[in-house]
């Protein structure tokens, strides 16, 4: 287990009252909604950023907004930190608890409350999975656009926490562009409604502020999201190039041509090999880089767009062009891409970076990424959303070797700094969590961080909500008073 990233020291006053706190919580929640047996707490000790883990004090699994509110009100009154949790698929450690925290998990709040086709909205409890929304809306001909690869498991509350994206965000935007309203439980238990089925805020855009706030401004208990009519058809085309540079230049040219595909996904050679070995998608193994470009629309529209896109690829010396003749072929192309993380996990431990860079910097950053990782004696596979510059280098290492684990983290940090220096940012969709927290100073000045922290304090003056995340610990105003 890695130790490089610190957590806030647990509050002694909280730890010493553990038994009393659990007794109090059991008055607020039905018995099946409270977890405190240390063995049963284990599933909550980490998220998908598995190199760090902490057992929480207890886990509350409320059934409804009123119970969320009651638990928050209690924790607020007694100065107990709270870590909101959806499905725990965060790749940045956003949902990892700490010893003095009560986790509030939304998994029991998983009902789709309403699909409103006339207004194209879905209203759901926060623990509903991303995919469940599209499945429910699908019967009526609609879907929910942001589609993180983890969509089978991750919750809409977690998506809002991380402003999640997905392969199809190039055309439809990320969570914040598809979120219409939330029911938000503030740290003191007050319930407020932000937005609704209408557009825009009547006052300040607090909804926009809450989206991507990593569980630090309140707990989302319900959400209203925008639905879109399903396109008539969708068709991916697969391109193989000799080099990543050619593929990168092709991406830039497609975007510049004015065509907006729904997705442009990129894989380098190591990623192709890993995915092909796992998914048998029929990816060409004699190429250095691969693009999956997907277009949507009616048959003639897709045909016209694909024709232009293929012509652009040819200008960039494309080696393999695979257009699909059937839905099965299309699904196979995507299967390889969507299983990339899983497939990588089978051959090695990995950490997944998430920096975003301006499109013009893609080739340079890819090249430097390879050099940086090689410099640490490790391997890297790149698979990412190229159309919006959101890179995902997967750094492969052996978690049982502490030295390799440390090197992987260091290489990751170098890569993220590179992304910032190239005009980009530390994280495009996975969030800061604990993983990138200590790099925040590389992107922001102290004054900028201070301003963000002060806005955070307008919601949570005592720093109780997910306090070890996002902001470097040394700069946190509550830091000195929290030590045990």
């Amino acid at each position, binding site marked *: 287990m890695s130790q490089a990233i610190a957590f806030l020291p647990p509050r002694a006053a909280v730890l010493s009252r553990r038994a009393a706190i659990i007794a109090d919580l059991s008055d607020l929640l039905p018995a099946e909604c409270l977890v405190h047996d240390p063995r049963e707490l284990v599933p909550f000790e980490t998220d998908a950023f598995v190199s760090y883990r902490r057992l929480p004090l207890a886990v509350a699994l409320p059934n409804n907004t009123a119970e969320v509110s009651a638990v928050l009100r209690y924790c607020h009154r007694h100065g107990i930190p709270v870590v909101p949790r959806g499905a725990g698929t965060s790749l940045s450690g956003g949902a990892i608890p700490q010893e003095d925290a009560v986790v509030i998990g939304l998994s029991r709040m998983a009902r789709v409350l309403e699909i409103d*086709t*006339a207004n194209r*909205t879905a209203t759901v409890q926060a623990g509903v999975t991303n995919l469940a929304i599209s499945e429910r809306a699908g019967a009526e001909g609609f879907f929910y656009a942001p589609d993180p690869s983890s969509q089978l498991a991750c919750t809409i509350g977690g998506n809002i926490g*991380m402003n999640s994206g997905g392969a199809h965000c190039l055309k439809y935007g*990320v969570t914040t*562009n598809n979120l219409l309203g939330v029911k938000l439980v503030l740290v003191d238990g*007050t*319930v*407020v*409604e*932000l937005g*609704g*089925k*209408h*557009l*825009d*805020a*009547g*006052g*300040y*855009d*607090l909804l*926009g*502020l809450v*989206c*991507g706030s990593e569980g630090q401004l309140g707990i989302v208990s319900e959400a209203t999201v925008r639905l879109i*009519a399903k396109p*008539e058809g969708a068709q991916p085309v697969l391109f193989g190039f000799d080099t990543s540079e050619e593929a990168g230049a092709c991406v*830039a040219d497609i*975007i*510049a041509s004015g065509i*907006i595909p729904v997705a442009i996904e990129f894989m380098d050679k190591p990623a192709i090999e890993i995915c092909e070995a796992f998914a048998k998608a029929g990816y060409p193994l004699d190429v250095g880089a691969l693009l999956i470009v997907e277009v949507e629309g*009616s048959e*003639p*529209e897709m045909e*016209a767009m694909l024709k232009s896109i293929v012509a652009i690829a040819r200008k960039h010396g494309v080696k393999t062009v695979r257009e699909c003749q059937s839905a099965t072929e299309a699904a196979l192309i995507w299967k390889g891409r969507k299983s990339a993380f899983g497939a990588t996990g089978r051959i090695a431990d990995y950490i997944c970076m998430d920096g*975003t860079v*301006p499109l*013009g910097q893609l080739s340079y950053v890819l090249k430097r990424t390879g050099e940086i990782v090689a410099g640490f004696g490790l391997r890297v596979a790149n698979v990412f959303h190229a159309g*919006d*510059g959101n890179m995902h280098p997967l750094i492969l290492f052996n978690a049982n070797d502490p030295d390799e684990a440390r090197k992987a983290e260091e290489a990751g940090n170098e890569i993220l700094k590179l992304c910032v220096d190239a*005009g*980009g*940012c530390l*994280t495009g969709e*996975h969030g*800061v969590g604990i993983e990138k927290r200590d790099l*925040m100073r590389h*992107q*922001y*000045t102290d*004054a*900028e961080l201070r*301003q*963000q922290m*002060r*806005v955070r304090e*307008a*919601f949570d003056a005592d720093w109780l909500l997910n306090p070890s995340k*996002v902001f470097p610990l040394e700069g946190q105003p509550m830091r000195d008073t929290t030590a045990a």
Partner: protein
Amino acid sequence: MILLPETEAEAAAMIRDAAAKNTRLALGGNGTRAGFGNAFLADAILRSTQLSGIVDYDPAEMVMSAQAGTPLAAIEAALAQNRQMLAFEPMDHRPVMGTQGEPTIGGVFAANVAGPRRFVSGAARDSLLGLRFVNGEGEVLRAGGRVMKNVTGLDLVKLLAGSHGTLGFITEVTFRVLPVPQTAATVVLSDLEDAEAAQAMAAAMALSVEVSGSAHLPPSVKTRFLAGGLPGYAATALRIEGPAEAVSLRAERLVAALEDYGPVTRLGAQETATLWREIRDVHPYADSTTRPLWRVSVAPSAGHQLVAALRLEAGIDTFYDWQGGLVWMRMEAEPEGELLRRAIRATGGGHATLLRASAQARATTSAFEPEAPALAALSARVKAMLDPANIFSPGKMGGF
């Protein structure tokens, strides 16, 4: 007094000075949208107009950065040269607000302006990637960046967009742009009642034809569009944009699906451009009066219900954009804010913004939707975190 900083550093110094002396500043560009919000007292006006110019524009990346005081016209001209545009179709407020001068790009984002395409492509805030601003303590800060995907820290970009100069002085904005669609067409359904129109507009949005504009123009306003050239006595307009073949295919499908609703007409690219500009700029109510004008945002299916409920009690004239969810409402005499807001709550919620009224009416009506007490307290705390001395347009967005 008017303050015209020529650099961001100078603006920051002016703001530090104002904070020290408790000088209240009205922030703005050329003031074409100065009519927004509650009337408030200011000791000086701080304008961005000298901070002008496109800082960076890479058409291939579809991203532009510009200083806040850059005229919108200059931005749109530069984009047009590369066949690109602002996706959110910003409304020109001058005709209805009776203001003059050149709108600035900073003002567009500060007021989170949008137009007909908003209901599918987002508002200004959705295109805004990053900004530079000066907070109430005179610190120059950046938020967001130049990239489309970014969850690095709190999204202050969204907070500043639509804050109407009450949270920070925006000095530079970086935003995403889109290619101009090759062509556009409008399918017009004639003679629908408001409720039928709402159904037809919802039906259109359930089709995979990518409608990018959806408005209903009742008889009282219909003749004010296209110089009276729209057919029938009421017009429900549906816009489609894209490559030529796609537009004609999709328009055909749309017509086939909706022709049972009423007589159908198709408008070409030229008329489409004019019609949607008139809808965007609320042409029928650009009437050189100060009759109260409301911009009401509700769920699309609630728009016509709200109007039906109000008709019984007030003299109003209306038309609908955003599939019925944006209701433009001109009152005969008084703003009737209480009545309107009660009716909005009764039909499922939303908000009403008073864009225009006599000085007397403005003094007694909250221009922005009053927030529930817990939310109002939260908004006030947020404001205090950015502008602790409360020198930026104090009271402009606060409730009454």
